[in-house]
């Protein structure tokens, strides 16, 4: 009904004006920034961004690959740059000879793979740009097993929808790092489990012995110190319920922009 529409429009304008006023009055915007319901409203934009980007994004479109000449002289290591955990320290001491990547959850054949075994899998080397959510970019060369063929070999169960990466590092008091991606990104050709960076074994600041590269998303999705990959149908009941360490602290799960 036209009458209803007018009311809605008036309501929208009133709310918009109120919001504008609140923003202009310094300090009030902080109250809005902290309000859970307002934050949820703002977060709806993430759904729109993900839907539209996935719509226009061909699933196979490759991130631009650069040349050796473009490599960053200094690739900044961000987030965790080392791991305190005693178990990890012992593994690092022996050059990760006893380290094993565990793949479990909703898979047909739960598997454990050593670094040597990972190095024998179908691999890919790519020189890509790493875009941090903070705004900086660095270019590095990454080599490692493609995740797609590896997942095919362990066999995903039909209800598997996400892969959760459990990591060895902890950041502050918020606990162990973890991340998750969906199957579109998991089977993307540039999604690799990198064990080499710039031609040498991954150094500890960059996530030794294994880090995820998921090239079309921001840096925090590229989990370092990966110890275990778990296939799940949902991450809603895991930790903070948002599918990742930074996600639980308010960052977007879909980090395409």
């Amino acid at each position, binding site marked *: 009904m036209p009458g209803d529409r007018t009311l809605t429009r008036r309501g929208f304008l009133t709310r918009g004006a109120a919001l504008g006023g609140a923003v202009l009055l310094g300090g009030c915007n*902080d109250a809005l920034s902290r309000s859970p319901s307002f934050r949820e*409203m703002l977060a709806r934009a993430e759904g729109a961004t993900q839907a539209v980007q996935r719509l226009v994004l061909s699933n196979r479109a490759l*991130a631009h690959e650069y040349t050796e000449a473009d490599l960053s002289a200094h690739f900044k290591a961000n987030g965790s740059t080392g791991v305190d955990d005693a178990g990890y320290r012992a593994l690092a001491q022996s050059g990760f000879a006893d380290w094993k990547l565990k793949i479990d959850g909703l898979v047909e054949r739960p598997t454990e793979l050593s670094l040597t075994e990972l190095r024998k899998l179908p691999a890919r080397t790519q020189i890509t740009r790493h875009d941090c959510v903070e705004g900086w*970019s660095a270019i590095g060369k990454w080599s490692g097993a493609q995740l797609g063929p590896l997942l095919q070999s362990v066999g995903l169960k039909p209800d598997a929808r996400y892969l959760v990466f459990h990591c060895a590092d902890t950041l502050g008091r918020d606990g162990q790092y973890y991340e998750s991606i969906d199957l579109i990104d998991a089977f993307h050709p540039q999604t690799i489990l990198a064990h080499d960076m710039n031609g040498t074994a991954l150094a500890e600041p960059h996530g030794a012995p294994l880090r995820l590269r998921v*090239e*079309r998303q921001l840096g925090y999705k590229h989990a370092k110190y990966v110890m275990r990959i778990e296939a799940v149908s949902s991450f809603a009941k895991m930790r903070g319920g948002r599918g990742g360490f930074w996600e639980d602290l308010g960052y977007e799960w879909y980090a395409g*922009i």
Partner: protein
Amino acid sequence: MHPAAIAPRTELIYRHALIVRITHWVNALCLLVLLMSGLQIFNAHSELNWGSKSEPDHALLSMRAVQRADGSYAGITTIGSTSFDTTGVLGLSGKGANLEARGFPAWITLPSYRDLATGRRWHFFFAWLFALNGLAYLLYTLLSGHARRDLAPTRGELEHIGTSISEHISLHFPKGEEAKHYNVLQKLAYLAVIFGLLPLAILSGLTMSPALDATFPFLLDLFGGRQSARTVHFLCATGIVLFVFVHVFMVLVSGLWNNLRSMITGRYAVETPEGGHAG
């Protein structure tokens, strides 16, 4: 001279269509939120680079807090190879215990405290609103003939641009018939913002998306890399701020209430000297 005997007649004309008025104010709100949340995002990496990657040694602009010889701290802004002490505003700001290293000060960022995740939420929500609002405006303005009728300068206007410039410098504005439509400088400024600055801000913003870069590699070629796009995005914001300063100044000096009313109710008062025609 205005002899008191000749009383000017005031005529109320319908100047702005409803959709123009709504999209104008939604746009104003969006730009304010986008600017303030954008500065919060900028603060997470308070320097600008050119090309694909960030190289601190080759930054075009940086804002940093550095320790002075006496142990105190200073905010230093560097543009190219020239450094400025901007303590209290850029690089280092906040009073007393709240003194902290940050690019832009708390009073201009959204939220005021350091919180990149929340800044991004504000930014992307209002970026969507801004884009949809802009699309609605563009559809109206192109389909209704508003752009051609009211925004496109005529040949004659362009030839007499000098007159308009001197009018603006002396802050004397047309009255009567001529006041019923935008003057040539106004037209050019609006066209540059609507079809230049704002679309460029959107494009450079989208180029910072690693996902969109994969699908539309020409974005990277267009701007010369992701960090260049970030710099262009910052320059667009600067340009929009400059435009708004000039815009608000012109609104103030050419009749605040008349201008405000025309953008709220649509009605704009034009003074016509007795006899109707103002040469």
